[in-house]
């Protein structure tokens, strides 16, 4: 982590702490825009800050710690894709996206959209806060096409996914013969952009998971230090200490893997290596998050099962997160696929 990344992280931690856990979506969004986080990765030529993915992920970690309700991952993914594109109205679009006036949703889960005869068909899953967006960025992997679609386009229907996790507010988009507002890229260019988008989505989700896991572990350790049974703090019982120590080593490992992977995206121009690092980071971060939170619930005892306690917010986020990105089972298999072969 460079000095500026550390400063950014510390500032973000303060902001997220002040907002409180799972704070209001609108308030948080306003703050995110005001702090300039939306222009973080925009090139300086486009009046952005010109920072990189590692810096963005430092923010994702902090927002993940606070279970922030803002669709920040989707917002940054859309902005990066527009930056990379050659849209004629690129400059205007970036200005309104950077100020937070306009938000473009992006699916956080795998989608099954087809682009045939100039029209999009299928279902896009997991678009956060789609009801607040004016457009949504969609793609067809099979047809090598990335498009912007107006949220009120004829043939497009929004359906709130109503997941157990209420902090992400995900929507399904049902598309029937929808004509896109514009095509961002086609063919090889779309293929490359899509790889980039998925890689960045993996890192962003990994970062949020690392933040969430760190936070719930800290809360659990603090609780065990305060809660007394058998005339002593529970933290004194070695059976519980050892479980926390294991969790700590796992969280540290996921953090180290994330940071090493991000360093790779910054230094090397090797796209495949960055992609692989993103897969590994996402896989380990989500495995760690779910495991930490499952243990946390147990270690809190009855209080952890109440709706007024915060434990369940982390549990529900973690349960959802492992299915986002490329899907629950894709990561390990893609990683293994590099060395194993079908007979």
């Amino acid at each position, binding site marked *: 982590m460079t000095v500026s990344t550390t400063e950014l992280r510390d500032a973000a931690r303060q902001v997220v702490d002040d907002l409180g856990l799972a704070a209001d979506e609108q308030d948080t969004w306003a703050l995110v825009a005001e702090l300039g986080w939306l222009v973080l990765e925009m090139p300086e030529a486009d009046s952005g800050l010109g920072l990189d993915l590692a810096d963005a992920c430092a923010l994702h970690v902090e927002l993940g710690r606070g279970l922030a309700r803002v669709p920040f991952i989707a917002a940054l993914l859309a902005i990066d894709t527009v930056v990379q594109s050659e849209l004629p109205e690129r400059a205007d679009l970036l200005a309104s996206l950077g100020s937070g006036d306009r938000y473009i949703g992006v699916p956080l889960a795998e989608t099954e959209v087809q682009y045939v005869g100039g029209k999009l068909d299928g279902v896009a899953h997991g678009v956060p806060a789609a009801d607040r967006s004016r457009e949504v960025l969609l793609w067809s992997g099979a047809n090598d096409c990335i498009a912007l679609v107006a949220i009120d386009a004829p043939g497009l229907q929004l359906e709130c996914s109503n997941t157990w996790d209420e902090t992400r507010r995900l929507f399904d988009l049902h598309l029937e013969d929808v004509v896109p507002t514009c095509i961002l890229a086609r063919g090889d260019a779309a293929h490359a952009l899509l790889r980039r988008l998925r890689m960045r989505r993996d890192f962003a989700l990994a970062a949020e998971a690392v933040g969430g896991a760190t936070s719930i572990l800290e809360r659990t350790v603090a609780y065990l230090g305060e809660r007394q049974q058998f005339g002593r703090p529970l933290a*004194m019982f070695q059976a519980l*200490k050892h479980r926390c*120590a294991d969790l*700590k*080593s796992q969280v540290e490992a996921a953090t180290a893997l994330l940071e090493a992977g991000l360093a790779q995206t910054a230094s090397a121009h090797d796209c495949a290596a960055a992609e692989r690092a993103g897969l590994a980071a996402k896989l*380990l971060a989500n495995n760690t998050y779910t495991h930490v939170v499952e243990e946390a619930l147990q270690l809190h005892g009855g209080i952890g099962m109440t709706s007024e306690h915060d434990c369940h917010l982390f549990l529900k986020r973690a349960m959802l997160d492992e299915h986002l990105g490329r899907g629950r089972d894709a990561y*390990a298999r893609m990683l*293994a696929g590099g060395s194993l072969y079908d007979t």
Partner: protein
Amino acid sequence: MEQSDDATGALRREVSAWLRDNVPGAWRESMTGTAQESFVELQRGWFQKLSAAGYATPHWPEGWLGGGRSLAQQKLIFEEVARADAPRLILYFVALYHAACTLLECGSAEQQARYLPAIQDGQIWCQGFSEPNAGSDLAALRTRAERRGDVYIVNGQKTWSTMAQYADRCLLLARNDRSGPPQAGLTYLLLDMHAPGVTVRPISQITGDDEFAEIFFDDVEVPVTERVGEEGAGWAVAQATLASERGLTLVELSQRMRSALPRLADAINAAGRGDDSALQDDFGNLLARVDATCALADRYLHKRITGEEGPGDASIVKLFYSRTLREFTLLGRRVGGFTAQCERGFMRGATQETGNWPLDFMNSYNWSIAGGSDEVQRNIIAERMLGMQREPKDWHTVERI
């Protein structure tokens, strides 16, 4: 700091070319079920070459042959050595890490000048910390060091001392004072294993090898000049030794584990199970964990270099390495099946990545027991890093009722 791509590429070419010409051939075959003499010969010959080329000590500081390397360069050298499938220098492991790090951190200028070049010339060291009644509770050790004029007289017994039967010197932790708290009365000595009164008895291990030994001391004289740190300050010096074992060594070991992944993939493919989705899941998860182990070890070393090391950092690396290594060898055991159970030959110097999965699995316990067991690391992480309250130390009063 980090090298440019060009400079890194040049170093990589230099090291891999050197390794191509110098790594002993077919050592796996020649070391399987072999006699000790040929093991020592192989290790000595390989060490001499590697050390002379400066590649045995990339983790040493500037001023020493091969030292002063950046983190990126150290990793690169370890990576290439592992990739070339060179035998691991287990005979020199304690000398290169434990002894060197202790001397560099706590030794006097004369001690450094005397021993560090000797280590690069192939002096073999062992670590004499554990005793029959002092394992995890190291501070309970009883081996005595009594000051008599300008020598210490050492009496007692050490155990589980790796490669002690070949060692020239021993990093000895002994008790000079029994009156105070256990940690207070310890003194750290550099003991000559060829001195009169030293007896070594190798211990047969579950793998068929005998990598560790008991050491008996019977009125062994150690000159006061061989003391590291002050009399009674041995505990602090021992922490330097243990920290090197828990953190620093793992940059090399995690690189070796990563380099051994293709062996596991080969085994899965050879068993015709590359399309078994359960195995794909487990192998993919293992890949991520192995990468994370390397990332943790790198981060630890970086923190050490920049002086940011905190309490428990080394324990995190060691614990995660040991658990990942266990999973690695377990997966191998699963894939190896019945056939692997029939391969009895042990391989000297190969440690835990031979591809003989039951053997590798058994050897993986080295890392969950030695150098502070997993449980001890967990205690350290929980109490010193997470700040969880210590248990009251009331057993002695209970016991004596």
